[in-house]
């Protein structure tokens, strides 16, 4: 152990240096955030309804996490028996066990998904049907299976080649895959050109101001699946672009509001937040893979299919689903990794939370006030900053988009 100490110390130092580097951000000195008092805009009853909404949402989240961990713990204990349903080799059998584990978790989550949907529908946050939620999720599970199988093929393949130290070559492979997905992500979404000439001109203006290379601004047709407005910056290098949901350019928002959104997204690109997201992912991929390797040693290591159910449990314990409040406060997609304390999220290009329209006179809408109020009137990072106890801390890391937005607001 003592002999390994220098190596461990060097690795810890390298990790810390990487984290410090990624943590850095510039905050404009002129930034002054306005204080918004919700009581000025909403009644006490509306604020209470909003609070109730959050409470139920969080209970559902907590229940879902507990059930998920219990199911995976049981699966880690008894899941090995499914190996007899495989005629494949160790890797193929591992894939089968991984898929069955995921499917069991999905099945256990269905009641929570249905309840969550009921709650959202009751609060007029979505019009999605129960059937499409359950069966759409079932089909989505197929996509997850593909990624799971590819991941297990990499892990188990390396485990069979190099034994317990599989995590050393596997982690870079996953980082490479994350980079690849960050690159191709914009092309996975069907988009149309942006027809609004004024918005296009504004984008060019912001690009020049921030020194961002010319970036396509496109519109994703999503109005058939949601009414919630949203936008995202996605891609790296030649693939990067700003994607506006067609629900945000449908006339509900003023040109100025849209310019703020556009500036916000370009701010992500200007500050290389998607690269940083991949960087955070890389920082957590190594220790995460190492932890799985350590945990599964008693099952013979990841070269054996029997270790897969346990590896799934470790994975979920290390990376639990995010709490609704944390997700709501998540300020940005590309930069989310460094902002909300979940830098291990392997999904570069995550979308910003939706920006539902504010309807202060709508008592039912007030039930979701904590979601709606800040989003409709404030830049999301600024909101995250002053709602959160550590607002200043957060703000330090989101200087990019905020800075651009401030300039836009000042210009306006």
């Amino acid at each position, binding site marked *: 152990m003592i002999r390994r100490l220098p190596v461990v110390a060097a690795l810890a130092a390298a990790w810390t240096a990487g984290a410090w580097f990624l943590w850095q951000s510039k905050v404009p000195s002129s930034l002054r955030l306005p204080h918004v008092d919700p009581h000025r805009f909403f009644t006490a009853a509306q604020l209470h309804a909003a609070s109730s909404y959050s409470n139920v949402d969080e209970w559902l989240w907590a229940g879902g996490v507990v059930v998920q961990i219990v199911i995976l713990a049981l699966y880690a204990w008894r899941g090995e028996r*499914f190996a*007899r*349903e*495989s*005629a*494949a*080799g160790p*890797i*193929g*059998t591992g*894939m*089968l066990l991984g*898929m*069955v584990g995921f*499917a*069991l978790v999905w099945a256990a989550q269905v009641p929570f998904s249905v309840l969550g949907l009921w709650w959202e529908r009751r609060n007029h946050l979505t019009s999605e049907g129960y059937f499409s939620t359950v069966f759409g999720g*079932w089909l989505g*599970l*197929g996509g997850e*299976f*593909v990624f799971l*199988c*590819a991941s297990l093929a990499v892990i188990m393949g390396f485990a069979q080649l190099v034994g317990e130290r599989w995590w050393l070559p596997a982690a870079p492979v996953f980082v490479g895959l994350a980079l690849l997905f960050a690159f191709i992500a914009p092309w996975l979404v069907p988009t149309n050109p942006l027809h609004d000439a004024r918005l296009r001109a504004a984008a060019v203006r912001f690009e020049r101001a921030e020194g961002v290379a010319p970036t396509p601004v496109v519109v994703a047709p999503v109005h058939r699946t949601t009414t919630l407005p949203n936008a995202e910056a996605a891609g790296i290098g030649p693939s990067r672009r700003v994607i506006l949901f067609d629900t945000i350019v449908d006339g509900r928002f003023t040109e100025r509001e849209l310019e703020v959104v556009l500036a916000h997204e370009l701010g992500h690109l200007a500050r290389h937040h998607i690269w940083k997201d991949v960087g955070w992912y890389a920082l957590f991929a190594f220790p995460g893979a190492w932890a799985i390797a350590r945990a599964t040693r008693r099952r013979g290591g990841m070269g054996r299919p029997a270790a897969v159910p346990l590896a799934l449990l470790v994975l979920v314990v290390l990376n639990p689903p995010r709490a609704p409040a944390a997700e709501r406060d998540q300020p940005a997609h590309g930069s989310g990794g460094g902002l909300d304390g979940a830098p291990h999220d392997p999904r570069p290009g995550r979308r910003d939370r939706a920006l539902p329209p504010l309807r202060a006179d709508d008592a039912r809408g007030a039930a979701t006030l904590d979601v709606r109020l800040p989003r409709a009137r404030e830049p999301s990072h600024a909101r995250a900053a002053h709602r959160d106890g550590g607002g200043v801390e957060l703000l330090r890391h989101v200087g990019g988009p905020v800075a651009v937005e401030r300039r836009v607001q000042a210009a306006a």
Partner: protein
Amino acid sequence: MCLNVGMDEHPVRLAVDDDLQRNRWTVFFRLILAIPLFIWLFLWSIAVVFAAIANWIATLVRGTPPGGLHRFMCSYVRFTVHFDAYLWLIGNPYPGFMGEEGEYPIDVTFPQPTAQRRWSVFFRLFLALPALLVASALGGSSGGSLSFVGGRRRYGGGAGGGGGALGFVVAILGWFASLARGRMPKGLRDAGAYGIGYSAQAAAYLLLVTDRYPNADPTAMLDGVDRPPEHPVRLVGDPHDLRRSRVTVFLRLLIAIPHIIWLALWGIAVIFAIIANWFVILFRGTPARPLHRFVAAYLRQRLHVVSFLTLTANPFPGFVGEYGRYPLDLELPGPAPQNRWETFFRIFLAIPALLVSGALGGALFWCAVWTWFYALARGSAPWGLRNLAAYALRYDAQTVSYLLLLTDTYPHASPLEGAPTPQHEFAEALAA
């Protein structure tokens, strides 16, 4: 791979006493000659609607179908069998109009009226639906016309006859073959007879002639029919392994997705390998061994995945198409000399086989669907559907092997497995 495990014989039995000889003139004008039979079938079907309702009520009350109505139904189903056999060229002579027993080379025998469970009688229309859907894929105007009776015409060919996809393909291909050779190919004849037999069993079940559910096992259906010669491409493995894991059955489609993607990627490489092999065979007369091995592994993998997907086999397959690793496996010939002309025109020559394979694909789909429900409930696959699926998979493997230049032996459409030594009748047919 379609063995009889000693199930009780189905009370509705098909009898095939056909010499494969066809009269070219009556074959050429078959559709026109069948017009009176069409009209008669249509009229009879209308009468059967009312008779079936009366029979249903009487059976619910008495527990046993009345003798007169039972005979009426038997005659009707037998007539549809004769009619189908004539229309599809499964039989040669013109059939009678009364559906009398023993008058036609493709015939069917029925049981005497016996007591039936009332709840099964009450729900008969719904219980028969899966069998009618399989029958609609295999063919048989009895299935089709009775679908009409049930007000669900979309499931079958309708009262006018015609039958399902397999029957239609058999009729079209058989028409050309019979005109050219004066004989119906045995494979097509057997396939058509099997479809007719299954449809007759489905119709008999629906019309309360029997309460035994149709048995899709081809070996049991064509018991007594000569087996074809052994094909170099054949299924091997344990057909009695009917156990199915409920969890993996429930998730089967999703779990198979990685395999489907892998197969698609592998398929791209196979296209180039086939093109290369095509040139090699044209020049050398024999496939290149590495290419042959590569394509053979792909084909084996394809069989494993489709078997898994359609619940014809239980375990999750591997990814390399290794021989002997999967309970349902494929024996393929090694690289052997092939006819250059046949190789040159292979893609065109394969079209008839592809049509039959496509028709059987419909039956395979329904097998998979019903096996899914059955396996979820019982934890095992039904023997009959499993063997029908194995037949469809075997024919598909033979077709694709032919298309992918693994063999130049044409697929054999008979639902029966090949015998190592061809039996008397078929040996003569080959000689002819």
